[in-house]
């Protein structure tokens, strides 16, 4: 497998009819859902390649004398205005100047009927002369789905800041700060690293925000700044392994998270090609695996279990045998249906809920 083949982002468009993916080689591949066919009932819902193109090429940054990777960091679909579909894709070159000292944010404006896209990245690729100055970086950001003046950004210190652009065009001051007080009993060398937020997503309703940090996913109510309304453990068994995860750099992995169409289920990735889902109402959760072996087309996924300690049942996998090179960082959920797209290194898996498909 080549590095350039690693999938680096997955995104459905607003109808779910199209799915765009980007990879470290700067390629964008777009899939289109096949229309339902009466003759082949199995064929409905499949996504086939619609178009592929080279979105970014490696570039050279004169100011920094640096090569800029062609890796696609993010894809955003623009709302469809006419028969044409359009999307924005970015790599690291956006905003090529380097700044440190304070939080930086970078913005992409899509000049498309007041639609704006916010894009940010942390600046670990540029080392400030004085590393002490670098205290906090922006890790993710998103606009509110209904109020175009609001956006949120997350930081490496685990906090979320909501900004209102009606207050000021330059958003160096936030309107609301969402932060959970640290539990002193859980404090360790790794506290700050694992509390860094790797992704933030508004719910479709606009009332909640979903954040992912290294070990948990959290749901925040926009109306409550003091603590998240829900916290789910993604792989708490790794808490005792943080040392070795630091050694192999895994602790810096940036897992993304996603809402389902009705905001009742959330999904995020883990190691060993596992991904997790949490039902917010019933508090049930499930671990599934995206693997070559278990997933011939139409194969049904069996829930997987990781066992800690002594009692190990058949089919359980022990923490020590987890493969940390197989990680699911990027996932996407169809905007209305139970269809999910999972990027597992150089494989893209698209799964469908059985019930969902039966109801068609």
């Amino acid at each position, binding site marked *: 497998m080549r590095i350039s083949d690693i999938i680096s982002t997955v995104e459905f468009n607003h109808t779910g009819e199209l799915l765009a993916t980007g990879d470290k080689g700067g390629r964008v591949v777009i899939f289109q859902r096949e229309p339902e066919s009466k003759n082949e009932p199995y064929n409905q819902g499949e996504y*086939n390649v619609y178009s592929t193109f*080279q979105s970014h090429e490696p570039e050279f940054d004169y100011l920094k004398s640096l090569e800029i990777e062609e890796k696609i960091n993010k894809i955003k679909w623009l709302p469809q205005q006419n028969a044409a579909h359009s999307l924005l894709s970015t790599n690291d070159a956006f905003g090529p100047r380097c700044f440190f000292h304070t939080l930086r944010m970078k913005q992409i404006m899509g000049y498309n009927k007041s639609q704006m896209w916010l894009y940010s990245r942390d600046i670990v690729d540029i080392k400030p002369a004085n590393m002490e100055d670098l205290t906090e970086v922006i890790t993710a950001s998103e606009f509110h789905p209904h109020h175009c003046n609001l956006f949120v950004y997350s930081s490496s210190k685990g906090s979320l800041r909501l900004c209102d652009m009606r207050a000021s065009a330059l958003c160096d001051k936030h309107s609301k700060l969402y932060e959970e007080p640290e539990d002193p009993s859980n404090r360790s060398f790794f506290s700050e690293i694992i509390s860094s937020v790797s992704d933030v997503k508004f719910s479709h309703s606009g009332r909640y925000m979903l954040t992912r940090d290294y070990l948990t996913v959290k749901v925040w*109510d926009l109306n409550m700044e003091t603590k998240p309304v829900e916290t789910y453990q993604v792989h708490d068994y790794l808490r005792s392994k943080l040392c070795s995860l630091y050694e192999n750099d895994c602790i810096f992995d940036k897992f993304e998270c996603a809402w389902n169409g009705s905001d009742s289920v959330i999904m995020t990735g883990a190691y060993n090609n596992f991904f997790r889902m949490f039902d917010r109402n*019933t508090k049930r*959760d499930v671990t*599934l695996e995206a693997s070559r072996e278990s997933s011939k087309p139409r194969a049904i996924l069996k829930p997987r279990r990781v066992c800690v300690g002594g009692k190990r049942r058949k089919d359980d996998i022990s923490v020590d045998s987890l493969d940390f090179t197989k990680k699911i960082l990027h996932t996407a959920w169809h905007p209305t249906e139970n269809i999910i797209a999972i990027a597992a290194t150089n494989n893209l898996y698209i799964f469908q*809920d059985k019930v969902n498909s039966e109801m068609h």
Partner: protein
Amino acid sequence: MRPEIFSKMDFSHSSLFGYIEDLQELTIIERPVRRSLKTPEEIERLTVDEELSDIERAVYLLSSGQDIQGTSVVANLPVLMRQNPAETLRRVLPKIREVLHVAGVEMQLTAAVSFLTVLQEESVSIHTYSHSFLHIILQNLEHRDAGVSNAWLETLLAVIEALPKETVRHEILNPLVAKAQLSQTLQSRLASCKIMGKVANKFEAHIIKREVLPLVKSLCQDVEYEVRTCMCRQLEHVARGIGTELTKTVVLPELVELARDEGSSVRLAAFETLVNLLDMFDTDDRSQTVLPLVKSFCEKSFKADESILVSLSFHLGKLCNGLYGIFTPEQHLRFLEFYKKLSTLGLQQENGHNDNQLHLQTLEQEKKYISVRKNCAYNFPAMIVFVDPKNFHLELYSIFFCLCHDPEVSVRYTMAISFFEVLDALVGHLPEILELMTNGGENNGSENKNVLPVQKAAARTLCVYLRYNRKQEQRHEVIQKLIEQLGQGKSYWNRLRFLDTCEFIMELFSKSFFCKYFFLPVLELTHDPVANVRMKLCCLLPKVKSTLKIPTDKHLLQQLELCIRKLLCQEKDKDVLTIVKRTVLELDRMEISVDAEQLEKEKQKNEGRSTNINEKMFEKKRRDSKTSSVLAKSLNLSISGSSSGTSADDSFRTHSAGNSGNAAVPSSSRNLFNSADQKNNGNKESQSRKMSIWYIIERVEWDKVKVSAFDM
């Protein structure tokens, strides 16, 4: 550099990505990835000796690097200043000064911004700054490119703010006085105006009188209208800097003069400055000088000079309140009428008497009228203060109504935004707003259709107000009033609005707040004599149910189920019954939120007891369902709604086991999300909806995907 192009184009319709075997038959051509875009020679030329320090590299690049490298050094100046101010000042800055003489526009602009950043970051003392940077700024101020000189002017204005007054006087003011003559270019006279505005608050009265004001005066009387306009706009800052005494004797006469200027932009600037300075004038001046000026200005605006209507409407709120107290009752009324006229400007009623005029209204004119109405909406809170809140209903309600129903979205939007302030201004009259909200429907029988959105908006605002009101007493009062006057109101219309209000409450408040205050009052409406109310209640029930948490709210859940049963048994109205049945199905499909923490607590409390509460509840319901014979079939549906309670119980066991150390390892043998388990309910439909068995529909191996010839 193009990626290689592939020959086969028809893959979008083949099942190419379904099966690996198919994929392997294809010829895959790899895309050669070129790692670098520069030839070795180019890189060689851009390469700098690694041994050089930051300072040395900066000096080297400025003296012999390419333009783009020089610009990057200039952009990096604030960082160098932070790291090593002494060496940067000694070695880098003189180089920059040299290079700027011949620099292109881009480097000039970059430098102006960098200089400003250095100032803002305070990496050197202001004394050092004025010593080293100020001269460079002043030197480049006269740059022939207007963009560049403007950028330097911006930097200079920010610098003036920070400089000690002696430096400003010697380095900036004196040279300016010496050269701000007509012989200077227009560009530099305009710059002088802005600098004057900035320096005016720096000095003692006698210096201003002797050195600043003569120059200000001469700029006010400049031959170019652009200069007069610019200076006129700066007069506000000048006036604030020199105090009321000098304003009265020097600035006001100038303003009066400018207000009669031949150029309309000058007159407009004078008008706006007068309005902004109202608080600086004494009562005499206001009534003797300003009021007549403003009056004639307003009168002319309609007759001759429509172009100023936009600005006039924008400043009207400030104007009316600034002149409050010196108006005669007649003038007061006239300005209010003027405001009302502007508020409906361009609307059909306004031009109804003249159809031709309506058709002649150009697009541009229409846009202008919309801005005028938008400004009126913006000024609405100020006008409430102007008429006194207690006269609101009498004087302004009709305009309030018009603006809220303006055909233009932006006007209504502005109105909605200012709702907060409206409420603020009327806060002493809270009961009246409530009254207005609750009575609106009855008073305006014929306008019912139009009142609804306003009432809804008012209800929403009240909810927002409630949310940010921290005074417990007032909070309770509002809640109480909402329940008594709306929820238990005599008119069905009010009770319907109560349900609207509850929707807003759910949207804005926490689940527990809603449950605490509004859950039961909402359920009360099950007995409502009016079918429309019951119908609306049914539609709201799924939302209401979603606020419940088990086990905390189990008694509320019981109440809810009781209500549904009553509706099913007693509902006579055919239409309502249809909705009830549909709602029951929907409620049944819903899962109730589980409060894991609370469950854990209760479990510990109940440790040792053989049955837990939820199971009891379930048992009880089953008995209920058996004893009840009316509408047995539908009842069954409503009972199956309780299965969610049961499954919650089930997951409770699972979850609490997970909580005790390893959430990811449920001890129950049951597969999470996969309720193939049938022990608690036999309803196939309710089972399958909870199932989430995932299967793969597609797997694409990335290294098999080809880059095609599509160009975007």
